């Protein structure tokens, strides 16, 4: 379970997250829906450990991961993250991008995980290509595969289908929903698109001006 207690974050004079409290049960699929600039990405980054809260605490699986006194680095939070852009490392191949997330495992196990994952995402033929040699949709599949590879307890999605056309978005939405359920992870999906929120999540929370509004 992920528990946020009175979490706040301010950038200079702008309060991005304002005393937010939230409980996300294990295996829940939750969508955070809000307009641009509402602070939903900051909330996601706080959970990931990419930002430190100014106030409040974040607990994951019963362990405090962020508070004014405690900070657990992102790599130790057992999370997967799919960013707004695919954010693939340009100097690594498709396989290299995914294998980086499996670095802690023995080499034989890395490949045991890689092969079925590539197959499931339909990107086996791309494994030796570099990010600039694949399309936008393929890049999102690779980003999803990278997030799923270490079998994280929590999957975080930050508007992962931005700038994709409708058929591709629908295709990837199905893939995300299917992959999350197969993985058994808790999911938090941030979007400003109501259609995406309802298509991928069981529960939708509305967010605006740094606060949960419904």
């Amino acid at each position: 379970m992920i528990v946020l207690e009175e979490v706040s974050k301010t950038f200079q004079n702008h309060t991005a997250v304002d005393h937010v409290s939230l409980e996300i049960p294990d295996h829940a699929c939750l969508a955070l829906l809000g307009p641009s600039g509402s602070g939903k990405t900051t909330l996601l980054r706080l959970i990931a450990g990419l930002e430190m809260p100014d106030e409040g605490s974040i607990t994951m699986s019963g362990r405090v991961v962020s508070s004014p006194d405690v900070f657990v680095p992102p790599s130790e939070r057992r999370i997967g993250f799919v960013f707004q852009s695919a954010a693939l490392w340009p100097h690594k191949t498709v396989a290299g991008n995914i294998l980086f997330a499996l670095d802690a495992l023995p080499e034989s196990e890395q490949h045991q995980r890689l092969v079925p994952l590539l197959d499931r995402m339909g990107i086996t033929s791309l494994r030796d290509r570099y990010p600039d040699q694949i399309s936008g949709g393929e890049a999102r599949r690779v980003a999803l595969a990278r997030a799923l590879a270490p079998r994280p307890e929590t999957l975080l999605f930050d508007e992962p289908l931005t700038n994709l056309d409708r058929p591709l978005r629908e295709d990837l939405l199905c893939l995300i929903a299917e992959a999350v359920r197969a993985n058994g992870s808790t999911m938090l999906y941030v979007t400003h698109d109501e259609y995406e929120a309802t298509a991928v999540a069981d529960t939708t929370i509305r967010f605006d001006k740094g606060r949960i509004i419904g």
Partner: protein
Amino acid sequence: MAIPRSFFHMFRRTLSLEHCLYALVLGVFFLLITSPLIGLGVDLLYAALKGSLDLSTPLLLSSRRLELLAASIGLATAVALAGIVTGVLFVSLLWRVSREILVFILLALLALAAIPPYIHALTWSSLFGSLTDFLPGLPTTGWGISFWVEFMALLPLAILLTWIAFASVDHHLVEVGRVFGSDMDAFLHILLPLSAPALGAAFGLLFLICCSDYSIPSLFGADVYALDIFAQFSASGSSAVASLYALPLVLVTVLVVIASRSGIRTLAQTPDWLSVRFGTAPRFPRFFVGLQVIACILILVQILVLFSGLVFTTGNLTTFIHSVSVAQGELTYSVLIAAGVILISLPLALAAAYELKQPGLRGAVAWTLVLLPLAIPASLTGIGMILFWNAPGPSMIYPGLLMPVLVSVARFAPIAAILLFVQLRFIEPLLFDAAAVFSPGLFETWVQIRLPLHAPGFFVAAGILAVLTLGELGATLVVAPPGHGTLTMRIYNYLHYGAAGEVAGLCLMITILTLIAGACTIAVLYLLYRGPGRTVETGGKPE
């Protein structure tokens, strides 16, 4: 009919007043920055045609020349490498500081980077001189101390360039790395490989600066190739012989420029690098933190030795006032030269900045021409300037008071062009399009729209031109008219012949002038950063 009409339109467009002015200013810019090369080239050709030249000179490297060349390259490589390694360690430490402190440190480094190298030579030689009382065997001359002082002098610049190199990497890619691996893994496997081209360019820039500078090695009794070019010219009186003699070093520096070109372009194109930040501090292993602390101590030592050395060697206020008053003539001439360089360089550099923005071959040619002067050792630039301006046409310029101005324009106007190019990237192009739609004429567009938008870049470039010109020695020494010297020349002479208190007073004066120029530049850089027309409005913050 369509083809002749489009041709006519293109022809008319090219002949518009704006385009003609642009072409004229651009032509003058490229003529001035390549004038030393033109002078050297024509002189070489003339001497070769006359048959008065042994063309095997560059090929016949005597053991002494080979030794000098290897030592110069070795020194420059060692200094650049030490600078980049320290820069990488120090910048990875900056990752954890708050944004305000980060901006302060970077801007302070910018001001420190502008302090001329010979001032570091003075403070470090004073320190080593004092230390010999306690450690009699401590060497006070030679390659070791030359390396150390050159390293200390270039350290702030190395750190700044390393920061920009790191900032050229999309920080989201590093963040993804932090999610999937440890901070050390993200640093080693993501940040370092992705910033490698820009780090390579930073290495190249430091290498070029070190290769073309002879002031520090010569003060510590270490002969370098750049100094020998000057010595060769003085001994033989033949510029063509000196040019041929310089060719092996120029070949090396040109190769470095070519190798660094795309990386330098990446460095210059890094958008909004002051706002790059990471939300949480990284956790590095202990050994790495230890190395970071050493890098931090090095920069603190650099600052401490610089300022305490200057104040203690100057002694008291009377010595300071005396040394400044006896050098009033040089001080006035130096300030006038700096003002002249700014006035001539800025309009020319603006046209060049637009040219650097061009895509494809045109942009590539402009970048090559702009970076080429960096490959020419300062002393050779001076010789080339004499050859160009002493020709029958423009001979009224040489020997004259304007020569030190022109030599600094040739050396530093390219840097102003790169700075204005960087600022140009911060300006939303639609603002210019809107001006073209709504403005009644060309003059109004420039006065009311373009110049105010370019103003912060002009101020920054002016500040940097001023400090570079105040510290210029290698080329000015060659072209300065008889009876007229700059402050830097006077200091350099003092450094050779003693008079520690007076020279420290003058160095303190130069440092104060540099820091004033630096502070003004920083103030305007802040305006540039906060100023009008910036494309990025989020300041790097997530929504």
